[in-house]
């Protein structure tokens, strides 16, 4: 917003203002370097891409060997009647490119199977690949290519009122997972020196009325914890009963006026309310401990990802300087307080967090040296991540989020599709449920996945989708049912699925309803943004949407 900024940059800041507030400048830069490949410019594929071009991905490439047909014009906003017969890849690329001049678009009019055979390396030049409308075999081939080079694949599909999304990624590491609920990192149970010094320098009894009622609740908790621990052998209040007693102890501390009536001290109210959420014991979360034991952390080499080098440094920190704790997060919640002491308290936490982060950086640099990836001469001149080195700002962000680090490893498509490794336990549960329940509102959408798989099997067998031609709808019902039975049998399961569902699948005739495509276009693009920015945790690994009931579910398949 500063007026010194010129031309394009200023424009971009304004254009992207509303989203920068969700993923920040660094999220936006990641987005702007992303190279996304869309296979098949179907209605769904085009909607996904539209939702990525608007927020400003770096570039996109559409791979599509098809010509535009009448049906495309009916459900794809970006195609017009006069597009019929033209290359679908070309027309959609041209029209989508108009959406954002900062995004460069490209296309390749070629058959996916041919390209997979001739030049599989084509696919490995992208940050993310999105596939729509692919037959099972092609999909599995593509999945294999991308899996081997750890490039995320998103499979998205709309079939009548059903939406399906699968995220396939061998390993995706997330520093900023933005958890919904978390405890503040206050260390009241193990106060660090700065906090002790600050709190000990304050004397509640000696304060005048103003200072007393404006002492941050964090300090109050610290003070009354000392009193409590003295009375209870150095132990914090643990259970419900003890915490209530502790709250009462704080309540006793509220100043009383000359008539013995307690004064209105908001900070004490806040302290009492914070007892439950703030008196948890500081510990390394089990998820983080398991990262410490991950082979990727234990066996670093010159090829290791920055993430794992930092995890290793974190592990070493907790074993040495950190005394068994993660680096301090360094932020405190808002509270009633005079600005001065609030800022002092903030500073106390921030400074300790700085110290911790510097210590972690020390481990990082040593590790880089050990694996032969020495940092540049002056690390301070390097602001952002560079090949080989790890910047201080990166380490700071990492430390601040060290309790929330997340590694996502989905199953491969191969595992999902092979009868031996399919998640039959999960599938079986849902098949059983369908049998027991009538198709009530609380039915389970996993059955829709099974139906989609049956439809694919039908396609493999008849090279068309059931009900695709109006005059075959009735005749296709028993055929689809047979496919379904075989599929379930292959999984070693026995239960059946209601005929209603089968009829409905045949009625859909593989149609893509625009509004379902629009919905899934939003969901899928959101997952791509998560993958590309490395922020927020993507779905693991399948999302199913039922457009008729407005229900959805996520399952690991």
């Amino acid at each position, binding site marked *: *917003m500063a007026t010194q900024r010129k031309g394009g940059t200023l424009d971009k800041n304004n*254009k992207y203002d509303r*989203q920068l507030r969700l993923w920040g400048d660094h999220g936006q830069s990641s987005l702007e370097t992303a190279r996304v490949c869309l296979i098949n410019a179907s209605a769904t594929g085009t909607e996904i891409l539209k939702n990525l071009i608007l927020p400003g991905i770096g570039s996109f490439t559409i791979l599509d060997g098809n010509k535009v047909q009448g049906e495309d014009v009916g459900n794809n906003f970006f195609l017009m009647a006069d597009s019929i017969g033209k290359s679908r890849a070309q027309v959609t690329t041209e029209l989508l490119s108009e959406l954002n001049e900062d995004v460069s678009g490209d296309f390749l009019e070629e058959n996916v199977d041919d390209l997979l055979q001739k030049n599989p390396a084509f696919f490995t030049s992208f940050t993310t690949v999105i596939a729509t409308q692919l037959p099972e075999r092609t999909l599995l081939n593509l999945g294999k290519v991308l899996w081997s080079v750890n490039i995320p694949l998103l499979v998205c599909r709309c079939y009548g009122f059903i939406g399906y999304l699968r995220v396939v990624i061998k390993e995706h590491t997330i520093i900023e997972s933005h958890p*919904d609920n978390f405890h503040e990192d206050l260390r009241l149970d193990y106060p660090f020196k700065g906090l002790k010094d600050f709190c000990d320098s304050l004397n509640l009894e000696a304060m005048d009325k103003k200072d007393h009622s404006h002492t941050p609740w964090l300090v109050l908790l610290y003070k009354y914890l000392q009193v409590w621990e003295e009375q209870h052998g150095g132990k914090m209040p643990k259970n419900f009963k003890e915490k209530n007693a502790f709250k009462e102890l704080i309540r006793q501390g509220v100043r009383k006026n000359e008539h013995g009536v307690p004064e209105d001290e908001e900070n004490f109210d806040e302290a009492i309310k914070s007892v439950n959420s703030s008196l948890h014991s500081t510990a390394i979360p089990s998820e983080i401990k398991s990262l410490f034991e991950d082979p990727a952390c234990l066996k670093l080499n010159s090829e290791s990802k920055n993430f794992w080098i930092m995890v290793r440094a974190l592990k070493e920190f907790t074993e040495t300087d950190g005394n068994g704790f993660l680096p301090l997060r360094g932020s405190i*919640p808002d509270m009633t307080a005079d600005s001065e002491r609030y800022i002092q308290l903030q500073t106390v936490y921030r400074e300790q967090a700085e110290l911790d982060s510097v210590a972690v950086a020390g481990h990082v640099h040593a590790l880089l040296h050990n694996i032969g990836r020495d940092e540049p001469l002056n690390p301070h001149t390097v602001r952002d991540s560079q090949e080989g080195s790890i910047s201080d700002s990166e380490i700071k962000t990492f430390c601040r989020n060290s309790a929330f680090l997340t590694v996502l490893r989905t199953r491969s498509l191969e595992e999902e599709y092979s009868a031996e490794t399919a998640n039959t336990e999960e599938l079986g549960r849902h098949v059983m449920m369908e049998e027991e329940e009538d198709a009530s509102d609380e039915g389970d959408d996993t059955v829709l996945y099974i139906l989609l798989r049956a439809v694919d099997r039908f396609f493999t067998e008849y090279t068309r989708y059931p009900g695709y031609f109006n005059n075959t709808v009735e005749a296709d019902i028993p055929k689809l049912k047979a496919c379904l039975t075989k599929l379930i049998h292959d999984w070693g399961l026995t239960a059946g699925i209601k005929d209603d569902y089968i009829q409905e699948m045949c009625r859909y005739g593989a149609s893509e309803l625009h509004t*379902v495509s629009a919905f899934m276009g*939003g969901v899928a693009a959101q997952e791509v943004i998560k993958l590309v920015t490395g922020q927020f945790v993507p779905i693991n690994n399948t999302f199913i949407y039922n457009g008729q009931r407005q229900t959805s579910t996520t399952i690991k398949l």
Partner: protein
Amino acid sequence: MALNGALGKQNVNTLNKCKILMVGAGGIGCELLKNLVLTGFTDIQLIDLDTIDVSNLNRQFLFRKEHVGKSKAQVAKESALKFNPNASIVAHHDSIFNSEFGVDFFKSFTVVLNALDNRAARNHVNRMCLAADIPLVESGTAGYLGQVNPIKKGLTECYECQPKPSAQKSFPGCTIRNTPSEPIHCVVWAKHLFNQLFGEEDPDEDVSPDTEDPELTADAGKSALDSEAKKDAIGGIERKSTRAWAVETGYNAEKLFNKLFRDDIKYLLSMETLWKERRPPQALDFHDLPGKDLQSASTRSTDVWTVQECGDHFTRCLTALKEDLAKRGEDGMLVWDKDDHHAMDFVTSVANIRAHIFGIPLKSGFEIKSMAGNIIPAIATTNAIIAGAIVLETLKILFGKIDKCKQVYLNRVPNDRKRLLVPCALDPPNPKCYVCSSKPECVARFNTSKITVKTLQDKILKGHLNMIAPDVEIDDGKGTILISSEEGETEDNEDKYLSDFGVVNNTRLKCDDFLQNYSLVVTVAHVEKLDGELEFEIVGDLSQCHPEEDGDSSAASGAPAAGKAADDEDDLIVMEDLELEDKEMEQSQGESVESRKRPAEDVESPAKSKRKAVAAAGDSEDLIEIS
């Protein structure tokens, strides 16, 4: 065709006959229009008062750079027709509050779809649809969250059946003028200053020290009087409006600065009672600002300016805004706009200078924009999802399956039951709703000898109860007319107090809005004084009201629609807290998380409970403004 297969041929024919009204052509609106056209709707009218802004382009895909400044409704129509020339689309670049869009207009549609971003317009459309008995699909998004609510008179809750948390947080005048303690207080003050200097002057937005601060009681009276004299001595401008004085000085940066940030602060310091329990402010001099010697050039919007930089920006913006103002002619005025660089930088610099004076942390331009502009993050993906869901709910209504409709809530991440999308059964109407029940009633608590007829009209009936042009009659057997919507008829009443008309505790006021076809009986509950400087309080349900009780905090917090409605512009702050009720979700486990003392700048703030909701918020885009 495939559509026939999935929807059924008969149903597809139904679509062709439907007339759709879309209110709003912004984030949700663009997506919705596309979906409607491609679902087979052919008769669509859309209405939006707004014009296209650069910050719309990250999601409102029917608009391009070259459209900035043009009518959203018009461009949306043209863009959609370019791709689908067969549809019949009528675009109104107009306000939905306009009387030409009366009940008959609404009655001419099969269904109304809201794609709005502010509560006032949502309330209004809700009432129009109730009056016309036309189904309404209501929707909203905020960041990653979204919701869709089908509404049908008599069958479901209406938009106003459940009290919404107060739309905007407001602050006591004396906090803003005398004793700010949080950045937001300085931001509010800075926006008031903008209006005082360049915009519409509003006595409620005074920026000078407030000598009527309730803290300055009894013994402080004398010193206040003393100070009054002192003030005249210091400023010598007491009897002049800030605007008149500024004009006289030619908007001289040094003079303005030293008055606002030196002399007024010194005057505040003279009100000693205020600083007994607070850190006193420190006056600044224009020529001696902290950070003067620092060679800093903050260029990123996320950088925090030094005080010296703030001073420089203050000077620069003052000059620029003065020129902008001059271009508007004799009686021209500027309207504060977060997307106007000078207006925004002015508020950033002023807020930060004031923050420095009061020992409050300084904020970056990026953050201040969020606070001052009441910005709700908005992205293409959420809008796409919600617009898809709107059409699917609309189809159920049109195919006669309204019983199958759901309220749909979009979570940020799948919930504990693995659901990203949570459908909830529709709730029946609230029999005590003051909008959709058969005899709408509510209670207004205030001091009858302190509320003027004008306040009743502007702040209570229009501002809080969302009427457009109310008529008010006292139910005293005589039919005394307090307010008439006919111009000029009751102007003489405006400055009189309600008590002057014999309004006492339990007096019933019959309030009518002709446009909305809405009648409401407001029962007055006289109270001497309300908590927290509230001017009045509206209670939806008579049983919740204890008229004689002297407002104690428990009673006040129990009131569902409490709130000082004085500040109803889209400025004051805060994310509306969205009332996304995840009814399927189990009570959130563990502790309930308290709302923060300091304003949450981020709607995603994890401190909020799981029960969030999307609602209006005053982000000026996508919005139908009250004109």
